[in-house]
């Protein structure tokens, strides 16, 4: 038999078609036993594939299916296999109303900001992009602070017996809608670092919001591990302190200027 090339060795290793027949397989095995070069090459291949196998994969517990189902169930709208039925159910869900409310608030803020900008002479009092960015930073900073509170509460919750997390759950539900808006706004504003942390935060908030209001110690532990393993609390703190730092001059840029101008004109 000829030497086995790399591709043949791979097929042999996986017992693929060419080596499924006993005769073929035996011939290849006999060649490997007799040929030092092919044997060395095959041993090297096996070592690499064994190293790939050695890379750890986190195991999930037996009850993982139930956890997946608990998170999934609120998202299953309408009958299975009917993607088009999503429409009304999606819009009528309470979270969407919260989101709609938050959007309305933003629209009002945008309208207000627009009015302020129009009423002032464009050269002196129009809100600059920097000031707008700082306003966003103030809002995001406050949002991160409230989110941080929820995460800290959950991290410090007792781990024995049933734990009532209904207040954290309620707060998380409210924060999810806001979070989406801020993430989108941060993305549009080119704040990729902030958007990325908000993205991670949102997943944790959704998980908390979709948890039962009373959780077992095991579920609590898994929730806590989830918060810890992502380092999300740390990231929220880092980004939170950074956005607060960047938001500091916001009051100077956005608020006092329009009030000071008319006073100067009257003198």
């Amino acid at each position: 038999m000829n030497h086995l090339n790399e591709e043949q060795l791979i097929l042999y290793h996986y017992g693929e078609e060419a080596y499924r027949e006993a005769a073929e397989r035996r011939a290849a095995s006999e060649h490997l036993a007799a040929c030092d070069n092919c044997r060395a090459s095959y041993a090297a291949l096996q070592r690499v594939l064994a190293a790939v196998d050695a890379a750890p994969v986190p195991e999930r517990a037996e009850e993982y299916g139930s956890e997946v189902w608990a998170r999934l169930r609120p998202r299953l709208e309408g009958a299975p296999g009917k993607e088009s039925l999503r429409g009304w159910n999606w819009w009528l869900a309470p979270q969407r109303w919260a989101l709609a409310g938050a959007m309305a608030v933003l629209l009002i803020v945008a309208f207000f900001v627009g009015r302020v900008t129009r009423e002032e002479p464009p050269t002196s009092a129009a809100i600059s992009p920097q000031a707008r960015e700082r306003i966003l930073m103030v809002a995001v900073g406050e949002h991160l602070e409230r989110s941080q509170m929820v995460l800290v509460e959950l991290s410090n919750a007792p781990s024995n017996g049933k734990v009532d997390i209904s207040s954290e759950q309620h707060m998380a539900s409210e924060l999810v809608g806001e979070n989406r808006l801020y993430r989108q706004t941060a993305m549009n504003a080119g704040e990729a670092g902030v958007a990325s942390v908000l993205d991670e935060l949102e997943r944790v908030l959704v998980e908390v919001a979709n948890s039962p209001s009373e959780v077992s110690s095991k579920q609590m532990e898994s929730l806590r591990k989830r918060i810890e393993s992502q380092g999300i609390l740390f990231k929220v703190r880092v980004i939170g302190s950074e956005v607060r730092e960047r938001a500091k001059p916001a009051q100077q840029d956005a608020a006092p200027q329009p009030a000071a101008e008319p006073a100067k004109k009257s003198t």
Partner: protein
Amino acid sequence: MDNPGLMNRMEGSDAAAVQRALAGDRDAFRVLVDRHSRSLFRLAFRMTGNEHDAEEVVQETFLRAYRRLSKFESRANFGTWLYRIGINCSLDFRRSRMRHEEHREPDDAEGNPAVQQLASEAPAPDRVVFSGQVGARVEQAMSELSDVERSAFVLRHFEGLSIEEIGKALGLRVSATKNSIFRAVQKLRRALEPMVSTTR
């Protein structure tokens, strides 16, 4: 699939569960979730290399499967069908993650220390501690495979699917599937051989 024999035995009851779910029994879908979540998580983790993303992929895969359940053909293997959706979700996640990373780079260049600190966390510190040096090198080598190479390799090496099944799942011809696996193994050899030959 970790245990093909068991998977085959399950297949009959999977098809029955699909039928019941389509008839309006939501708990029947729960049976499928219970049965396939753990293996789907392992697949998603190997595809994304990230525990958090893998969790999201599992959720998204079941959500898509639920919405497309009427398109599932009862003669097909539910596990393979679900894996195909899982592979697509994983690829979507990887792509969106890459887009995210691309967006993040200019911020880092501008010297934003907090963001720099976050960006330098990939892979996350707990993952590095957890997986050790070999795991980290394997993860790095896997991340350098193309989407198709990684998918084909994961399905062949870890999930034990035949080349024909992989071709079906990825929409590739048999020869293209084989070539993807060959290229994946060759790249892994190039990246890992120096390390495994010194650690013998």
